[in-house]
């Protein structure tokens, strides 16, 4: 692992629409293992933010504990970051989002952080349809403590220690769909062509956008018998669709056969164009989305792609009807009723 990154960038690399260069979205040097899927995922996040021209400081990156939760240090150096405690990222994001609804909240977690210790917080952040992008880097094991199985490890999968995992795995995408997430996708850290547009679509969605990124652990779970190894995922994943993310105002140019393309317009008027294998499956149908996941699982396949979208979902602020102006910008004049009102309250207490 190298701890030096050259600062040289090709002089012809163009800035994005907001005038930022790719390097403006980069972070510190990664200390993850060489070949870790998380590094590819981080690169995809950087690329997605760059392509969407989001001002880096208008993003808040928040994580829990674990290898994946160290990631916020390796991306978006101009953004505030918060590496909180194990499994508690969703509650920190909830509070942060309530305080200022105008930032993009990027929650980064892992399978241990989300599917075990943070299961409750995950479930309830999804239920309240918090406006955030929840990236769960999924390698089926605990890396920092040397490779114990996590709750997303498939039954029968075999990691480095050789004993197969005997417990049922948790499919967080299925659960997210059931609990009301407005955007659910699954991808693979090794598939940048799918992951980058998926992240961009997730960032454009208002409400909970949950992405399960299968992100192999090269040190503890990249074995021949592991279902979260690079090899296995490449051999056994099947994309439900390919799709284009079309930002608002950009002309839609590509043509596809009728019946196989489904367009979903997001809150910010950007469009996801899905080019489906099976034209009868609608990405906006919750039950079909769960069925598709189960059917592929039966065949031993990992279904990837945008699995479910509810473009009209209401986020927490809409549900509880908080003021449009970010709460952290309100001052005494907005918040304090003053002494006269207090004296009338006193009077009612006599």
């Amino acid at each position, binding site marked *: 692992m190298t701890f030096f990154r050259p600062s040289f960038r090709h002089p012809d690399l163009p800035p994005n629409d907001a005038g930022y260069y790719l390097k403006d979205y980069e972070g510190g040097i990664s200390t993850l293992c060489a070949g870790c899927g998380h590094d590819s995922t981080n690169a995809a996040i950087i690329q997605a933010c760059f392509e969407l021209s989001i001002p880096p400081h208008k993003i808040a990156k928040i994580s829990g504990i674990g290898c994946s939760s160290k990631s916020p*240090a390796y991306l978006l150096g101009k953004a505030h970051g918060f590496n909180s405690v194990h499994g508690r990222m969703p509650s920190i994001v909830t509070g942060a989002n309530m305080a200022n609804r105008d930032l993009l909240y990027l929650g980064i977690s892992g399978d241990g952080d989300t599917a075990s210790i943070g299961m409750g917080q995950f479930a309830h952040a999804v239920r309240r349809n918090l406006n955030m992008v929840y990236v769960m880097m999924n390698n089926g094991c605990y890396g920092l403590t040397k490779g114990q199985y996590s709750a997303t490890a498939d039954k029968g999968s075999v990691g480095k220690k050789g004993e197969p995992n005997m417990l049922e795995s948790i499919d967080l995408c299925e659960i997210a769909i059931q609990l009301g997430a407005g955007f659910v996708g699954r991808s693979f850290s090794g598939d940048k062509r799918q992951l980058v547009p998926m992240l961009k679509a997730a960032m454009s969605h208002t409400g909970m956008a949950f992405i399960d990124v299968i992100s192999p652990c090269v040190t503890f779970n990249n074995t021949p018998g592991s279902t979260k190894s690079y090899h296995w995922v490449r051999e056994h994943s099947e994309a439900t669709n390919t799709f284009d993310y079309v930002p608002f105002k950009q002309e839609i140019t590509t043509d596809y056969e009728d019946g196989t393309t489904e367009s979903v317009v997001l809150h910010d008027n950007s469009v996801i164009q899905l080019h489906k294998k099976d034209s009868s499956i609608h990405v906006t149908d919750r039950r079909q989305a769960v069925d598709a996941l189960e059917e592929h699982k039966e065949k031993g396949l990992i279904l990837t792609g945008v699995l479910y979208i509810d473009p009209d979902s209401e986020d927490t602020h809409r549900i509880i009807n908080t003021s449009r102006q970010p709460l952290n910008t309100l001052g005494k004049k907005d918040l304090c009723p003053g002494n006269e009102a207090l004296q009338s309250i*006193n009077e009612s207490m006599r």
Partner: protein
Amino acid sequence: MKNIESTNDFVIRFANVNGSGSASANNLFAKAVFRMGVPVSPKNIFPSNIQGLPTWYEVRINEQGYLGRHGDVDMVVAMNGQTMKKDYEGLLSGGYFFYDSSRKLSEEYGRDDVALIGIPLTKLCNDAFENPKMRGLLKNIIYVGALAFLLDMEFEVLTSSVEKQYRKKSKLIPPNLKALELGYAYAGENYRGVCKLAISRRDKVGDAVIMDGNAATGLGALYGGATVVGWYPITPSTSVIESFGRYAERFRKDTETGELKAAIVQAEDELAALGIVIGASWNGARAFTATSGPGVSLMSEFLGLAYFAEIPAVLVNVQRTGPSTGMPTRTQQGDILACGYASHGDTKQVLLFPCNPKECFDMTADAFDLAERLQTPVIVMSDLDLGMNDHMSPPLDWDDSRAYDRGKVLDKDQLEELGDSWGRYLDVDGDGIGYRTYPGTHPTKGSYFTRGTSHDEYSKYTEESDAYEHNMQRLLQKWETAKELVPVPEVMVGNAPATAGMIYYGTSTDAALEAVDQLREQGITINTLRIKAFPFQQDVENFIRQHDLVYVVEQNRDGQMKTLLINELDVQPDQLVSVLHYDGMPITARIISSAITASIAHKGGKA
């Protein structure tokens, strides 16, 4: 037999069944006493249950203004068959037993030192009212009417209280008035001259208000500018959030859009509740939560993070009887150590100890200034007695010229000026507090990585021993700064020399002050100090050093405040003597004064 004679100094205990609608009748009674200008202190003794179990409402009437629980009962209003015998037996000799005589009293009730006052409440009620649902409620109002006669109360105070209470449901006024009159008339016809207890108008409440501590706490958070609330329901703290929500609806709602200038999020547990507070505070909003002991246990993890990563947080702990689930509807001051040193590793948390609703209001509002100035959690240590019972209190007051102290926060221009010299945890002022920034402030400056892992002055991860120690030392410097900012103790030293002192805090205050008077009557002079905050100031240490012996009065088994005093101050442990009470009921003056007299007698009569 001679029955107790007293004007404006006695205790009435209402024994009811929970869920029977007795609360509003009992409140009506207590409020009427207050409105006659006589100091009153009601205590609700209720079960952790929805319907059917015993509940009591104990009202102390005392024109001298002693508001702590007394401990004796002069009159029982026995409305609960389950507890009737015990209630009867608990009466003072010479007391009055008020019961529903629709059913005949059995021969077991044969005390010759108790006056029986039987009013056929059920019969009166059923004869007068048709609606079966209303009957249950109005039966309670009938006993209030009867008490008005027996205790020689001003009947108009009760009728106008009813009118005020049902202002918005005016249909309920006539039946309630009728019920009052029924009871009053029956008692007048049958028990004239029997009861020698009386409530007589005085002018002893001044401009006081009567309200529960939780209502004042919620209001304090509203005035203090809280906008984000994360919470999880738990007795006895829930009504703090309800109060905040109610007043937010009234004062913070946009009449056109219905949008609220607050986000109240009911979380999945207390872990998340405090996580929400920390996330919001980190992002520049004032945020708080309210909980009780079991919640504090869960929140300890996040309290450590907020302490170490230096994020403001306001937590209201309405303490109840522990350990574990304990007695959820009984009071205690049992979380002093769990809060003072909350979380693993070396941590210290700022605590505030309110003693009445006005202090609940003030200290909660102040807690936001303190938390943001000190960039650390501040815990308001209320308890069930204070939070859920009505208390007479000085009126609430707000200085309109007061500005919120948002602490050390750099804005965009300040970041520009600083150039590259800023470090999140750099102590440039010597007070142990760095300058923080909110996310989104500046395109290129001021971003940092908040973490619960060890960090250097620039918030970079470090495992360097020196950097770690330096950081921990700076946190101690900040603790010193906190001593200058938290409220100072209330010291009362008499003119006569006293070798004994007494330290008390929170809801032990009323009983402690009454105990001082009781001791004085016995010729024992004692100086007092009321702790209002942790960390302790030098005043507390000085007070202990100035006395040979200092009694530490508290409502827990292990003398937790005493432990904290010994641990934090340079004092001799054997100078401190615990006076403890922890049965779940509020402490009384008699418990304190008798413990102290016994201790003094044991030590040879010197105080």
